[in-house]
């Protein structure tokens, strides 16, 4: 802990409260066959993650249940293995980010940036999610049964985000690939500056962002929607409208003026 003196009084900084460089897994999980359960109520973020990693990587457990995560931040990040993880409760910010493979179920809600940069796997959230859900995901399915905050799937590069409720402002901002399915209403600036990908909206759209246009629903789209709703057992709204990139801002194959000159000569 760093001590910083200010005036006559000293302030104690432990900005994150998380610095535990020499922590060991608490080894409190109850292992029963291929399943394990542990209570996270009195554990710090670091200890919860160490225990989770011990069970999955060292003990080879493929089904872990974490009780009472208590809305702590950065839980379950960086798990790069196929397994099943259940969180009985809510996660804070940056939950299950940077994962590749796990099937995660969260019985509560999540804060900002859930499943950020997921490569593959499934994350199902029974309640609501904060802003930036599924930011920059490249693959996998992120299912939020309730509503989500702003900028859902910002910079999304693949995978599917399925939202049972409403979504906030700048949803799918700079989306590059993949799809979003939003059953409820969407805030202003939907699909602003998107490059590619598809957005399906069941409710109303407050306004479209720059270079986002309505697209034509095809049979393949309908088939995909039916399949996703069937997999996750969600009620499918009667109709969807599809939004895609208008490609008006596409300037990628334009050469720089100096390069053009080279071509001409």
């Amino acid at each position: 802990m760093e001590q910083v003196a200010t005036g006559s009084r000293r302030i104690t900084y432990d900005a994150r409260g998380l610095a535990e460089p020499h922590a060991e897994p608490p080894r409190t999980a109850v292992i029963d066959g291929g399943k394990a359960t542990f209570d996270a109520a009195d554990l710090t973020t670091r200890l919860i993650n160490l225990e989770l990693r011990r069970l999955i990587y060292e003990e080879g457990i493929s089904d872990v249940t974490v009780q009472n995560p208590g809305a702590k931040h950065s839980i379950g990040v960086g798990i790069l293995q196929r397994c099943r993880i259940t969180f009985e409760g809510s996660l804070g910010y940056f939950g299950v980010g940077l994962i590749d493979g796990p099937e995660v179920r969260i019985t509560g809600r999540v804060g900002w940036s859930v499943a950020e940069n997921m490569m593959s796997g499934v994350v199902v959230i029974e309640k609501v999610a904060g802003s930036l859900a599924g930011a920059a995901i490249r693959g996998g399915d992120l299912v939020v049964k309730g509503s989500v905050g702003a900028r859902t799937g910002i910079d999304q590069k693949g995978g599917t985000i399925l939202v049972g409720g409403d979504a906030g402002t700048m949803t799918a901002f700079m989306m590059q690939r993949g799809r979003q399915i939003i059953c409820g209403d969407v805030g202003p600036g939907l699909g602003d500056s998107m490059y590619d990908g598809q957005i399906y909206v069941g409710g109303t759209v407050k306004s479209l962002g720059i270079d986002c246009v309505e697209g034509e629903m095809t049979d393949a789209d309908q088939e995909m929607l039916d399949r996703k709703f069937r997999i996750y057992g969600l009620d499918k709204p009667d109709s969807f409208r599809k939004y895609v990139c208008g490609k008006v801002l596409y300037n990628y194959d334009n050469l720089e003026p100096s390069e053009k000159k080279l071509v001409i000569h």
Partner: protein
Amino acid sequence: MCGIAGIIHRDAEADVGSEMTNMLQAMKHRGPDSTGYALFGPPTDLVVIRFKLADANDPRDFDFKERLERHRLEVESRLGKIGAHIDRVDTETEYAYRALVRYEGDLKALADYLEDVPGCEVLSLGHSLEIVKDLGDAAEVAEMYDLGSFRGTHAIGHCRMATESDVDISGAHPYWAYPFSDVAVVHNGQLTNYYQWKRRLEASGHRFQSECDSEIIAVYLAERMAEGDSLEDAMKRSLDELDGVFTYMAVTGDSLGVAKDEMAAKPLVLYESANLVAMASEEIAIRAVLDREIDTSDPYEGQVLVWSR
């Protein structure tokens, strides 16, 4: 980054001092520079004045203590001159004081007269509002000012990561909506038309005690309310007139409100039940007072919500 929190008990009194301490301490990682509280105790006929005569960082020169004592006596003498009957003046810390006075006159005149004493800043003024702010985390500030025993109905709080201005008490939140009785604001974000508003509000006679952009919100709301707007109307109007990114909370003697800018760039998690509303930048702060599985939601962009007792 900064963390903000608010809690209102709609039909009872509670230990809001320790509740707010727990909420803010849970968000210490969002800002450890300073911590502040706007607490509402049971309303009295008397006026509660929280003021300071020096900042925590001020150099302790050889006549520091003597000067503070002299200035405190000057404050007391001025209270008498302006027609306030002093009930008591308590010394809270080396430089912060709490006065209880009987006073029926104009609060602006009172605040201006007191702040004319060198080093004096009126932190809050009202019949139930008490603003307490100092350097350090919530546990340190609560201990310094003995907030564990503070009972009341509602409160807002702030833990600050200084970005726009100095780490000192003047730059700490909450801000009192000078010269309005019992109105205070905490803010997480940055305001980009700060100087525009500061010049405009100064021209219409408002005073600023800090270089912190957040002080604008408190003074802005005060001016809107002086022109007859309700708290809710003033907050709604602020969404159009204040530029930047912000989630801010405002409190009055009987209500607690929150406003979120149209970019929804700053977080807020809200828990609402029939008799309790608790909200904060992070859910863990709410969990610090409601230690069970709860249903919370995140208000959307451009939303203004106000709860009254």
